[in-house]
């Protein structure tokens, strides 16, 4: 059609200039109606002459739904009324479309009447378009006259009745002989039963060209027919028990137990469900099944089509319906980690001026005149507090597995997810509404529990007692870690006092250990244990140790390759004290002390000297005849230069040849000085390098007096990390985009949280702002993860679909991320994109249409047929068409029909739901 109209323009382009003079109309004599017609004609000529490309340049606007459809409009006046004329045209008009191509998106009028470009003229009025039939016909004939004057081949439509009916009449001049007429209307209520079924609809169509009803039964018409059925799953939110039973079938393969009707949330086994329940981001799915064109010859055939299986449809598409919160309509109102983290940041913002956490509880804070803490800051009742503390301190897992953390999690200074402080932070997010007062109450009670563990020497819950202190975690976690170790040491001391000292060593008389106040139980246990194992494995050692029965103490075993220098005995490695453990503030304290001392030439840490001295004492005790050189050979082998290159034969050679390195043999060597001063004492008798009682008390003092803002800063970091780690455990089937997003989240969090960790600018409003922005980012990721999880579980057996749907949404969503508000829905079609379902995925999709329960089917009276697992289509669209072979000589030579032998004489588009029916008819006739 476009090509033909273009050819028309060309002729007119050439003659337009002269025409304006030749066809001079005397409007003074013409009637207002005639003037109206010529006005339409003028506009039409202008548009015809411009062609789509120029119209685009002149400011045609996209019409919306189908992307390549544009429109221009012009306003006209007739009989005191304003009219608006709109011309819709397509930009990329590649090829002629099939009569009903369900796959491409079409403008409503295009779909209804099978047209491509078209014109709509309607009165302009504020309260909607209302045209009665005579007015509509008058308007349409005005257009028809104008169009034939300017040889336009565009179809023109006029709306009739009120807009909700979508009723139109229209006309199209098809060249010399044919005219097409259009008519469409809607039955909004009480659709006759006959028209609810395919058979009746077929007869309706046939009645439009059959001459009598008797004809119907005797005459067979070759009617072309295509169909599109749209189904919709039951909304997921309403019927959770259904979904649960569905998943039982999917995952266990077992039959659905009738009694399994417990109300279960969809995300019950998602990692976040411990803390909150997310609304299912997927409300429902629409399934669109389309049938390609087929020929129907009788109403019997049509009736059968109503029972045909949906699996026979040529194509299936699925359209997800996302929850509105996902679409950004309720930005910031979704309850999740992000929302709670936002509240925690608010708490941080008001924590600065207060000295102790207790002040928030005692009301001192309010009395001081600050109105920042609203009186609405509610603390949950004691029962809730008890439950939280019980969960926190008494129901922890036995084993802490740090492996579940994201690889980048460590860059945030928080605490491992399973550990005490991380769990405390997560609990406080959901304790009350995470206001500062509730946090303070929880913290005070929490520390009371911790103090109780300390006083009673009970192991701290959720804290590992082994290993070193992880300095990449926050200070509170380090303190708790150290406290757990101190408690463990204390417990060992207590055990050793209770057990009676002699017991553990009774069977190895060669080692004499005296009970000592500072004696460490582990050391002694280790000593006796290794002693035993060595006494069996190396008889030589056993012999020796019994020789030196009274002097050798605290040996961990023989160093087999080494003989002592001054006596023909093997060297014994001593048990040594564990190096003291330190939290980062202790390290910093040391560093500051060192800085104060300045870079004095021979600085060495006192602590390290103590350790060295302790090692030397233990070595002396284990090797009574040892010399300084022996110690160096064991402790710093590189400072001993062997005479000969050592070989296995020289192993037992005595005395071993060699000398100390130059630096060790230096007379002023500090090592030798320490050696000379060190008394021979086994580690178990030495003064401990770390006093667990003292350190434990110091830690509790820190925890009990921590400045609120320091605590809140650590809580914010830890809460962000723990929330991210929790979400990271979500199983979403490894969607690549999601994984990348999570990978990006950690560095983003790390850099936003860094100012808090550095503790440089407490209370800087800019930091709070940054954190708020981080919450927004977090919320985006949280939403995406929720969606990914929901998709994954719904399409467990069709991962391609979940992936494609997620990617579609992700691409739509991505540009909006990082913005506080998601404005407009310009890209909505991207989200509601149809996704084709492959044949092997059809079963998965079908299984989502579970048989409605009695309760649900009761709500609806099924009336249309074409059922899918008891679901009726929500809409059924049909296009009937009848074609007739025409002699091409009848047509205008330039017409597009010249290469198509058949023309569509009748076309009917029917769109029905269970409540209404829309019918649009186009008839081509020879006038």
């Amino acid at each position, binding site marked *: 059609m476009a090509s033909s109209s273009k050819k028309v323009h060309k002729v007119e382009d050439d003659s337009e200039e002269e025409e304006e003079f030749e066809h001079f109309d005397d409007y003074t004599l013409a009637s207002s109606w005639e003037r109206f017609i010529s006005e339409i004609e003028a506009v039409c000529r202008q548009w015809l002459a411009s062609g789509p490309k120029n119209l685009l340049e002149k400011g045609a606007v996209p019409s919306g739904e189908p992307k390549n459809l544009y429109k221009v409009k012009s306003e006209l006046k007739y009989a005191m009324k304003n009219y608006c004329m709109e011309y819709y045209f397509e930009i990329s008009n590649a090829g002629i479309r099939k009569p009903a191509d369900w796959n491409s998106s079409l403008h409503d009028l295009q779909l209804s009447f099978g047209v491509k470009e078209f014109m709509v003229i309607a009165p302009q009025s504020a309260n909607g378009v209302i045209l009665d039939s005579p007015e509509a016909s008058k308007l349409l004939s005005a257009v028809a006259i104008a169009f034939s004057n300017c040889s336009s081949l565009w179809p023109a439509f006029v709306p009739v009745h009120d807009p909700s009916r979508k009723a139109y009449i229209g006309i199209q001049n098809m060249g010399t002989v044919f005219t097409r007429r259009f008519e469409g209307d809607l039955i909004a209520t009480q659709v006759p039963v006959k028209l609810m079924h395919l058979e009746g609809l077929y007869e309706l169509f046939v009645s439009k060209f059959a001459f009598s009803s008797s004809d119907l039964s005797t005459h067979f018409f070759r009617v072309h027919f295509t169909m599109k059925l749209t189904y919709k799953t039951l909304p997921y939110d309403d019927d959770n028990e259904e979904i649960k039973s569905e998943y039982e079938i999917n995952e266990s393969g077992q039959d659905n137990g009738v009694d399994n009707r417990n109300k279960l949330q969809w995300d019950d086994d998602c990692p976040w469900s411990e803390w909150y329940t997310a609304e299912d981001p997927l409300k429902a799915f629409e399934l669109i099944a389309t049938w390609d064109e087929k020929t129907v010859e009788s109403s019997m055939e049509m009736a059968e089509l109503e029972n045909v299986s949906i699996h026979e449809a040529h194509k299936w598409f699925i359209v997800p319906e996302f929850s509105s919160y996902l679409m950004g309509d309720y930005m910031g109102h979704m309850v999740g980690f992000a929302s709670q983290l936002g509240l925690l940041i608010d708490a941080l913002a008001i924590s600065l001026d207060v000295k102790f956490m207790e002040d928030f509880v005692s009301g001192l804070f309010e009395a001081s005149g600050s109105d920042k803490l609203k009186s609405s800051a509610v603390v949950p009742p004691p029962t809730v507090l008890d439950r939280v503390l019980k969960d926190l301190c008494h129901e922890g897992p036995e084993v802490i597995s740090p492996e579940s953390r994201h690889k980048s999690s460590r860059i945030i200074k928080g605490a491992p997810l399973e550990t005490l402080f991380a769990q405390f932070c997560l609990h406080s997010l959901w304790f009350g509404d995470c206001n500062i007062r509730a946090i303070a109450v929880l913290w005070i009670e929490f520390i009371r529990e911790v103090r109780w563990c300390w006083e009673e020497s009970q192991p701290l819950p959720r804290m590992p007692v082994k290993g070193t202190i992880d300095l990449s975690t926050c200070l509170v976690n380090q303190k708790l870690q150290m406290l757990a170790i101190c408690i463990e040491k204390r417990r060992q001391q207590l055990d050793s006092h209770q057990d009676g000292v002699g017991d553990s060593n009774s069977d190895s008389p060669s080692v004499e250990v005296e009970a000592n106040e500072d004696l460490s139980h582990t050391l002694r246990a280790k000593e006796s244990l290794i002693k035993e194992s060595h006494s069996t494995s190396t008889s030589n050692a056993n012999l020796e140790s019994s020789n030196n029965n009274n002097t050798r103490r605290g040996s961990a075993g023989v160093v087999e390759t080494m003989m002592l220098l001054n006596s023909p005995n093997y060297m014994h490695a001593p048990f040594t004290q564990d190096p003291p453990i330190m939290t980062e503030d202790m*390290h910093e304290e040391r560093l500051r002390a060192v800085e104060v001392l300045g870079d004095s030439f021979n600085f060495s840490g006192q602590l390290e000297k103590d350790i060295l001295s302790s090692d030397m004492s233990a070595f002396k005790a284990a090797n009574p005849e040892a010399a300084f050189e022996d110690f160096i050979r064991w402790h710093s082998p590189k400072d001993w230069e062997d005479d000969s290159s050592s070989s296995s034969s020289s192993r037992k050679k005595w005395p071993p040849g060699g000398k100390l390195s130059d630096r060790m043999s230096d007379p002023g060597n500090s090592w030798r000085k320490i050696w000379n001063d060190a008394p021979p004492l086994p580690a178990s008798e030495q003064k401990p390098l770390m006093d667990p009682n003292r350190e434990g008390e110091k830690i509790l003092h820190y925890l009990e007096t921590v400045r609120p803002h320091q605590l809140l800063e650590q809580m914010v970091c830890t809460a962000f990390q723990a929330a991210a780690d929790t979400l990271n455990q979500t199983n979403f089937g490894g969607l690549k985009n999601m994984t990348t997003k999570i990978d990006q989240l950690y560095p983003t969090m790390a850099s936003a949280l860094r100012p808090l960790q550095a503790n440089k600018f407490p209370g800087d409003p800019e930091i709070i702002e940054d954190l708020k922005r981080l919450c927004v980012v977090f919320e985006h990721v949280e939403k995406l993860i929720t969606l990914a999880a929901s998709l994954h579980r719904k399409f467990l057996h069709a991962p391609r679909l979940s992936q494609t749907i997620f990617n579609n949404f992700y691409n739509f969503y991505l540009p909006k991320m990082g913005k506080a508000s998601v404005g407009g829905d310009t890209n909505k079609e991207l989200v509601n994109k149809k996704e084709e379902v492959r044949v092997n995925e059809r079963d998965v999709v079908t299984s989502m249409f579970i048989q409605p329960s009695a309760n649900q089917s009761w709500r609806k009276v099924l009336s249309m047929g074409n059922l899918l697992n008891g679901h009726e289509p929500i809409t059924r669209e049909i296009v009937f068409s009848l074609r007739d072979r025409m002699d091409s000589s009848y047509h205008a030579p330039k017409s597009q029909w010249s290469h198509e032998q058949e023309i569509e004489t009748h076309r009917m588009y029917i769109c029905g739901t269970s409540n209404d029916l829309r019918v649009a008819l186009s008839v081509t006739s020879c006038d």
Partner: protein
Amino acid sequence: MDASSVSEFDYLFKLLMIGDSGVGKSSLLLSFTSDTFEELSPTIGVDFKVKHVTLGGKKLKLAIWDTAGQERFRTLTSSYYRGAQGIIMVYDVTRRETFTNLSDIWAKEIDLYSTNQDCIKMLVGNKVDKENERVVTKKEGIDFAREYGCLFIECSAKTRVNVEQCFEELVLKILDTPSLTSEGSTTVKRNNIFSQKPPVSDDSASGCC
């Protein structure tokens, strides 16, 4: 650290020296901080020096931590990795095992204990004055540095060849890495992460030789 020192320098960087015992870490440090070379007692645990330098127009305070190589001290020295912006791995070009231990032991220690993802690593081959005793070639050093993504230089604490350059190069690289400079900065100059690109990934931050 404290408020009074703010005006004295623009950045405070913490550097850490690691490597087997006797490779010359302390000598290297002494050579850098006081321009002298002497036979030193083996470090007990850890040593610490401060040096003020001006590089790239910035006044810098370098706190250099020199750790003991002995195995016994290793559990304790692990804590000194914390917050270091630069780590200097030293080996002795005349003793092969000090070189192989870098990959067998020390590199693993860094991965384990360093809290700073972007921290700059530098490989230093010491004692090049003993050229006739050399067993580790320069090429081997370069290959290791490339594989491990760190800077590389050979020097001699005794003759002071390349000693200055060693520290300078490391510090310049740190100055080039925004996440490190923001940490060490003493002035209020925070970047808004939301108004610019996401933070630099560690791949681009770790340089090569």
